[in-house]
């Protein structure tokens, strides 16, 4: 369908306005991270380009250390979630046992309990286990994921039962079927879930703040917060530089993931 020229212009103007609204804070952060302190304080337009803020962000704080911590934690959570969610989803779809559907709905019902409600008992648990200031304390509480199990179950359900039966006749057990057929067929969903899990844990704030007391295992979001309140006056240039560094992995992942996701989706559509 061809859109009339006039309407096209209006649509694009609206889109530009919306993009501007949404993107302005990010743009400001990026621009401010390259401005000198003087320019920021006076609120004038940038007069000089400087990388000073970035240098200072790395010098004053163990930013690189935070980033590495965040990577370790996010990747561990992502992998843990993928393994547990796919195994649980497999059981809910391909294994037949009494009360399976009831168990599944019970499982799903946990999605209605907000994270904040379980944060205190979780904290007690990891404290009693001695996992404070440990990677285990930062990651393991997030391995079991009702949403991921739900997503993968819906996806696995689309795999025809005949595939399982054909492999049963061929003499293939559950583990082999799960590894050789279910996981490759559900690749797209696994990637989606992986990206989602990674980003969610990368952006986590409250839990890492509670579960850590020192810089050794702290993640980057906590580090950012620390940049802010060290002294009376906030050094906005350094804070923005830190923020830009933090969003870079997210952006990279989104770009890479998007391409892969698109390919996966069209593959599925062609049947």
């Amino acid at each position, binding site marked *: 369908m061809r859109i009339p020229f006039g309407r096209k212009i209006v649509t694009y103007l609206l889109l530009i306005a919306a993009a501007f609204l949404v993107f302005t804070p990010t743009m400001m952060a990026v621009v401010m991270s390259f401005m000198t302190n003087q320019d920021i304080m006076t609120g004038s337009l940038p007069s000089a380009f400087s990388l000073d803020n970035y240098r200072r962000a790395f010098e004053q704080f163990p930013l690189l250390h935070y980033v590495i911590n965040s990577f370790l934690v996010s990747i561990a959570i992502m992998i843990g979630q993928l393994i547990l969610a796919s195994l649980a989803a497999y059981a809910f779809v391909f294994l037949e046992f009494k009360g399976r559907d009831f168990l599944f709905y019970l499982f799903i019902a946990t999605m209605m309990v907000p994270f904040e409600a379980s944060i205190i008992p979780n904290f007690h648990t990891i404290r009693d286990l001695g996992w404070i200031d440990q990677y285990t304390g930062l990651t393991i509480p997030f391995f079991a994921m009702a949403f991921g199990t739900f997503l993968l179950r819906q996806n696995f359900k689309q795999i*025809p039962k*005949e*595939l399982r*039966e*054909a492999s049963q*006749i061929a*003499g293939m057990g559950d583990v082999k079927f799960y590894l050789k057929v279910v996981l490759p067929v559900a*690749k797209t969903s696994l990637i989606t879930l992986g990206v989602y899990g990674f980003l969610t844990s990368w952006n986590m704030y409250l839990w890492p703040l509670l579960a850590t007391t020192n810089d050794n295992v702290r993640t980057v979001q906590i580090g950012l917060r620390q940049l802010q309140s060290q002294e009376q006056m906030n050094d906005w240039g350094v804070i923005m530089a830190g923020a830009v560094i933090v969003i870079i992995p997210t952006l990279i992942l989104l770009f890479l993931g998007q391409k892969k996701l698109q390919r996966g989706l069209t593959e599925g559509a*062609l049947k």
Partner: protein
Amino acid sequence: MSYIELKDITKSYHAGNNILEQINLTIEKGEFFVLVGPSGSGKSTLLRMIAGLEDITDGVLKMNEKVVNHLQPKDRNLSMVFQNYALYPHLSVEQNILFGLKAKKVSKAEQQKRLKETAEMMGLSELLDRKPRQLSGGQRQRVALARSVVSEAPLCLMDEPLSNLDAKLRAQMRVEIRRLQKQLGLTLIYVTHDQVEAMTMGDRIMVLNDGEIQQVGKPITLYNEPANLFVASFIGSPKMNMGKTEIKDVSNFLVNKTLSFSADVRMQKAFQVHKNIIAGIRPEHIQPAIHQEATHSLEVIHVEQLGNETSLALDVGGELWTAKWPGQWDITAGNQLEVYISTEHLSFFDAQTEALIRPASFSGHGEVQAI
């Protein structure tokens, strides 16, 4: 020697509600055995029980004289072709064909040898690198067949394998499957709801309805001597014409209150035993009154010219009967038509028990012509 033996096989998902009721059956080695019935008759369930994919509620299933009720599907030494082909979408044709062999840990050299033979036999040699989604329906079907051929299992089960194909391709695949079965000497159990497939492919057919065996026999036997009303109306296309029969006087009876026939001695006896009788006649046995004198005159409702034959819808006491005449006939709908119907061609069924009383008899000339 019987190869597969079913003894009082019963299946129920809920107690007291049997999907299959006391199925007794033997299938010989090398036989092409067709299970046919309308949807919901339990034919697929029966096949899946033979495959070991469904539990057997009651009864004994024997293969090669051994009870296999609780044997795993993989230990039953069989292959299966599914309606939706069950090809692994992420694997190439070659990997799909070899999937089962890898699982059974057949040696690499043997795998390649069998793959080459099978691919050549099925005409898939050019397509081995493709993914299933890049194949047409017929090609996917062939891959599914190749997968079962390559396993070299002596028993092959097929669950409506042709129902996703268009009519032309279906006719072609019917021949291919039949040839393959003969060539490899397979014992094949084939489930279908299509009576044409059943008639054209099977050595023997079992008609199933509501979980009960209606009749087991050769295709021609089922056609000529259907055991009951269900088989009579299920086998044959267009289906057998049927009408209620009443006795007019000692030597005459009426079908559908319209068609009058004279009754012979045997018929008269039958009428004494059975209160309500239904008469049936195949469409090809309502014949043009050319060689014989017309026995009845019927109104033509509709004419279908098929080129090689002409299908007529006739009004018989308010019911539509079909007649099938070979060749091309210039007949106009709405006219009266002179036809010849012989009592010899009438089959009679008891209306209450639905069982056959007397099949159509063809005195003097058999329907099957031997060459």
